[in-house]
């Protein structure tokens, strides 16, 4: 009789165990941040990325939300490493939905994640749009 909580897939469970990547960098010229969502919506995220050589060298997140959302944020941190600005601008939430087996009812929260990623792209150091 398998009685694992069917709502959460293996990757969500693995990510929630450590929440690797949680934290943030102090503001600095090479740090790009992305904010999206709010608590009233039930999900809020703050991404902070250190940029070097035109790509993300390191990233951190802070998040408020359900396990899928927190796990997706943690997963995203690994995914961001090495990403270029145009990749972030084009990033699609469906990649996270698949990787984390997110149920359809929660796709809206992943859109918040996508907003945050795109906001990092807009805030890319040395870019016109960097102040949003």
């Amino acid at each position: 009789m398998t009685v694992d909580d069917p709502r959460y897939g293996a990757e969500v469970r693995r990510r929630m165990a450590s929440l690797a990547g949680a934290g943030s960098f102090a503001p600095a010229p090479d740090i790009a941040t992305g904010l999206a969502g709010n608590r009233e919506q039930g999900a809020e995220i703050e991404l902070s990325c250190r940029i070097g050589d035109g790509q993300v060298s390191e990233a951190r997140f802070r998040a408020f939300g359900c396990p899928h959302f927190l796990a997706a944020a943690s997963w995203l941190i690994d995914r961001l490493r090495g990403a270029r600005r145009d990749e972030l601008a084009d990033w699609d939430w469906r990649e996270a939905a698949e990787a984390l087996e997110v149920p359809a009812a929660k796709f809206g929260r992943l859109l918040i994640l996508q907003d945050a990623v795109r906001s990092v792209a807009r805030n890319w150091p040395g870019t016109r749009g960097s102040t949003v």
Partner: protein
Amino acid sequence: MNDVIYLDNAATTAVDPRVVDAMLECLGPAADFANPSSVGHLPGRRARARVEQARADVAALVAADPAQVIFTSGATEADNLAILGAARFYRERGRHLVTSRTEHPAVLDACRQLEREGFEVTYLKPGPDGIVEPAQVEAALRSDTLLVSLMHVNNEIGVAQDVGAVGRLCRERGVLFHVDAAQGAGKLPLDVNRDCIDLLAITAHKVHGPKGVGALCVRREPRLGLVPMLHGGGQERGLRSGTLATHQVVGLGTALRIAAAEMQVDAARIGALRERLWRGLSALPGVLLNGHPTRRVPGILSVTFDGVEGESLLYALPGFAVSSGSACATTSGEPSYVLRALGRSDRLAQSTLRLSLGRFNTDAEVDRAVETIVAAVERLRSVAPGQSG
């Protein structure tokens, strides 16, 4: 049960081993398993005698006469039989009902069914402490009000209503009074005469009896009419057809008999456990108690953790059986209508845990819960935006 600490006694309880023993006396081939309607033979009469003993036990708990007790499959059926049965019987007398927004779905959905049948229902909004004031009920009564339905103890926040005051008011005004006592019966005193309760719904499984059995106490003097919901063999004076489940009824009777005998001891012990739990949790900042601080059942504690997402908090407590609200509200994410009726924002309602204690919980379990919940809250808050580090 896999070392999980069970703190969800408002959803359901473990059956007391003494109750299990009594049920076992009515199951197997050597037991009193016969059909209690088969009074033409000795095994049937033995089963009947057990059923009647259980009826007396149920009646005794609420100072009723055994003839008032109709066995049902639980409080959902008892609530439906009371509300639909009385409204349909007396529909020519009036088509208005009064209830509250924090009732259980068994009451609210029965009322909605009556709305479809041409009744009008006033849903009172309780105060921020969860209490419905008798004056609110009084103000809502109309000349065509047929019935008031008010729960004894709320299943999410544990607040106890002053059903006696409302009952006396209804009696004076000639309005029927139904009380859903699923969460209160066996935990707080009830007296159908003193409290002027015409219809009282009880269930076994919230007080260490079996699931799937309950009772409706129906006023007899003067006799209250009900339209039955189940038609058939004519059991329970025609009000509830279907073979009486001897072991279930005996389980109900035994559970309520034990609850009556041990009410004071249990209330003191469980109330102390709840205080211990609350003391531990309220050491955290941003923690709110839901519902009136003292007018409550001993076992239920509803706590809001500001700044913590509820589903993730639950996720962080795999070693505990706790609830984010009513057991019936299984669809995660939807904030509790009870907490919203109290004025909590969606965000706060969503950040709430219901911890409910029973006869088998211990100090050590409560301490483990405090430790784990405090750690989980701190961890989740530490990864949330707006924190330093």
